[in-house]
């Protein structure tokens, strides 16, 4: 608004000197990290063939050869040119076509800024200004006949601090949290009263006992989930937080039209399936190996095999990353010259291998527990009947472990699907990171992290989260239904 007002005042404040030239440029006062906003008002509507050069220098100047060129704006034909929105180009520029409403400037394919005939004023956010230092700006008007007019010179300094976003308004959040808490407290009081009325004495004070836990759960988990779903329907991003508005399903359209949507979903599924199958398979193998009666050194083995679970995962993942470096242990050991992490398929193999290594102990221990619960008499009877080891495993162990394996595999599925650390710390989604789209080893949740905190597109990231959650629900539901169905048959 401020910018608009200043611009409207411009022609009044500064008199007309020369037709169509920029006689004055003004600052609209807003500066950012290494950037300064300027506004230039034309004395007359612009005409075809004229172009404007924005000049700058770190000392005051009065001739063009004392200054450096920042950018050029051409007056010309604009049909067929792109018109990038704010934030899509390096220097955001907008112009007034004559009716007082500002629209984004046109860009040729090489990025040259173009305004149509009859423009009254142009505003630009100049980027790349050295931070925290006073800089001088002027605009040079060059007519088709090569006469030049230099505007007055103004000075401004960009800030040295990166101001990412306006501080959010606290009150709506406090209001939401307050109303959730109050309604929950009212609900608990109501339930308490109902219990009292019914004369249930065994529940004395129960609602008071669960109130703190339930309140924190509501405020810090359920509220963010609902807020996330709302965010997915707004245009929230880093630059317009607090002013975001409802945009419908636009973000979901963005999600499904992302180049590489299928690729990242496919790799996520591959990643999850290979990991869960290997975790359960190898965990089962080791659990059976450990379950041997009278095996010497069992405790030592068990303790050693627990280590991948006991050591913090961020440490082991980084250690593995070091081992996969060209100078690391893998090449030393194998006597090879590999650089797995620089190759897309190699990196995929490496991250999956590391996650298999990490996840086996949990499955091993859980399956061990289930194995010990199996009745010993069953195996003794099988032994008497002369049934071989493999047949015992196939026909006794596996069917009896089923009730433990089904929930374990579902749990493993959800955990692996959401395993952030391994991929973020090993490859950060790379190699082959595209400008907009997932990298070669990105799974859904590492990509969402990038969308949210690298691109700052919170609304789109929230939409991704909703889509991922929906996928998880569908997979888990189908899995449970199918396993239940087969259980009913057997």
């Amino acid at each position, binding site marked *: 608004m401020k910018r608009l007002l200043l611009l409207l005042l411009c022609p009044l404040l500064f008199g007309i000197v020369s037709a169509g030239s920029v006689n004055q440029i003004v600052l609209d006062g807003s500066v950012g990290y290494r950037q300064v906003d300027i506004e230039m008002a034309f004395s007359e509507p612009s005409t075809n063939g004229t172009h404007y050069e924005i000049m700058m220098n770190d000392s005051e100047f009065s001739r063009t050869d004392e200054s450096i060129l920042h950018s050029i704006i051409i007056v010309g034909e604009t049909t067929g040119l792109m018109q990038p929105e704010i934030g899509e180009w390096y220097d955001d520029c907008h112009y007034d076509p004559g009716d007082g409403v500002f629209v984004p400037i046109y860009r040729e394919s090489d990025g040259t800024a173009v305004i149509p005939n009859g423009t009254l004023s142009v505003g630009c956010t100049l980027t790349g200004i050295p931070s925290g230092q006073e800089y001088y700006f002027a605009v040079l008007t060059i007519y088709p006949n090569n006469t030049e007019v230099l505007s007055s010179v103004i000075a401004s300094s960009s800030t040295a601090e990166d101001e990412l976003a306006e501080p959010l308004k*606290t009150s709506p959040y406090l209001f939401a949290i307050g109303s959730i808490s109050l309604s929950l407290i009212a609900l608990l009081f109501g339930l308490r009263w109902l219990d009292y009325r019914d004369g249930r004495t065994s529940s004395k004070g129960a609602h008071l006992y669960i109130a703190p836990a*339930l309140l924190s759960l509501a405020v810090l988990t359920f509220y963010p989930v609902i807020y996330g779903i709302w965010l997915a329907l707004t245009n929230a991003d880093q630059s317009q937080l607090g002013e975001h508005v409802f945009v419908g399903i636009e973000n979901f359209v963005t999600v499904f039209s992302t180049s590489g949507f299928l690729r990242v979903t496919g790799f996520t599924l591959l990643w999850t399936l290979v990991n869960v199958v290997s975790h359960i398979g190898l965990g089962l193998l080791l659990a059976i190996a450990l379950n041997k009666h009278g095996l010497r050194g069992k405790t030592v083995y068990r303790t050693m095999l627990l280590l991948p679970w006991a050591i913090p995962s961020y440490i082991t993942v980084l250690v593995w990353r070091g081992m996969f470096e060209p100078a690391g242990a893998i090449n030393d*050991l194998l006597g090879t010259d590999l650089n797995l992490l620089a190759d897309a398929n190699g990196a995929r193999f490496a991250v999956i291998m590391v996650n298999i290594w990490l996840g086996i102990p949990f499955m091993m221990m*859980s399956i061990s527990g289930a194995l010990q619960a199996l009745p010993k008499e069953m195996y003794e009877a099988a032994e008497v009947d002369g049934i071989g080891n493999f047949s015992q495993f196939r026909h006794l162990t596996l069917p009896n472990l089923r009730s433990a394996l089904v*929930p374990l595999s579902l749990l493993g599925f959800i955990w692996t699907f959401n395993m952030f650390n391994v991929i973020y710390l090993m490859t950060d989604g790379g190699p082959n990171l595209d400008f907009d789209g997932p990298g070669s080893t990105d799974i859904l949740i590492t990509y*969402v992290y990038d969308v949210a905190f690298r691109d700052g597109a919170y609304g789109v990231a929230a939409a991704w*989260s909703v889509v991922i959650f929906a996928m998880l629900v569908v997979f888990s539901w189908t899995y449970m239904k199918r396993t239940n169905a087969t259980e009913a048959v057997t």
Partner: protein
Amino acid sequence: MSSMDNMPRASKSDLARRWYVPQEIESIRSYYPLVLIVALLSVGLSLIRANQDAIYSSTSIVLVHLVVLVLLRQLDHGTKNIRDGALAISGIGLFLSILHHLDGPSLWIDIWFTAWAAIPFVLVLAAGSMPMVTLWVSGRLTVKAAELGLRKNKMMAMKHSHALHHLILFHAVAAVALPILWILDVALSPENALGGGFMDEITGEHFEKLISSESFWLWTRNSFIVSIGTTLLGLALAIPAGYAFSRFRFRGRDSAMFAFLLVQMFPGVIILVPYFLVMKALGLLNTSLGLILAYSVTALPLCVWMLKGFFDTVPRELEEAALVDGCSQTQVFWRIVLPLSLPAVAVTALFSFLAAWNEFLLALTFNTSEEMYTLPVGLASLISSTGQAWGDFAAASLLVSLPVVVLFIAFQRFLIEGLSAGGVKG
């Protein structure tokens, strides 16, 4: 028995053959799948190394293994000739393995591969030439000898199966130990070298640097504040709730318990972005309080379920007696239930502490200023696009994980019980 003695000699030995397979042969057969997998890996390694001769020799070793396996399978209804063939081919295989080994570099892995290639051949040679096996394959086995053999088989089967279990477990342990040995080597090596011989130069420079560096202690302090805060707040929230779920029957109990289960199903990612914005709005980014709140709520459902399970095991009679004696419900809780379940509370506390101590994603997202880094984020920042301080990272990793690992191993039984109870139920 007497009727058997009257039978002709040939049919008796046929009977013996049908009932008896020497355990040596049986064991070698069941080891063979592993042998073949390793042999194929050896071919793979030769392919990666692009060593032509090694590719040929390792492939032919695989083929020889296959032939030996087929011959071993034929032995049951075979003749002495098949045994002799297996022995001869095993000899060739042994020779090939040695040639293959002499051909390439002799790193640890090559010695390992050679062992896996050669030892089965040696075993076949040894087992195949045993007198008992010779009798068996030549059809001259008496029923008496077979009975003796069957008894011996049982003992041997036990020993061999133990050996197989040790073999599998030893390899698993080696795979686990590899990164740990490597990080030990990097931590004790000078500068930030990743490669080099194992423990060839030993120095404590990284540990000295770490102990005298400010940021490491700052991160440790932050981690301690966050983890202890999480533990205290988490327990303060979870103990009353767990107790109420365990002891009281009240309206809304089932819905509340379901709410706790539901939260465990939510993947962290769906909350991350809104969580970040709420924290930002409340000014809780780059504070310890923000992380403490987030962690204690994340761990809350599991803690509540664990504690509920523990409280369920405390006998109710004690409480009822105390109530009859005139204690109030609050007094019962503080004076009787809590002291009795102190070990359980300690395990839950340890669980909360470890979860907060190791958490990475939320710490990375919420605390972006270096002043407020916790250990996970701080350690990860040592290895980034700008810095590759592997030596310092390795030393810090060892210092940070040692106490955690000791705690985990010491309390593994309780932690795993609680975690799988909560996890499987959730």
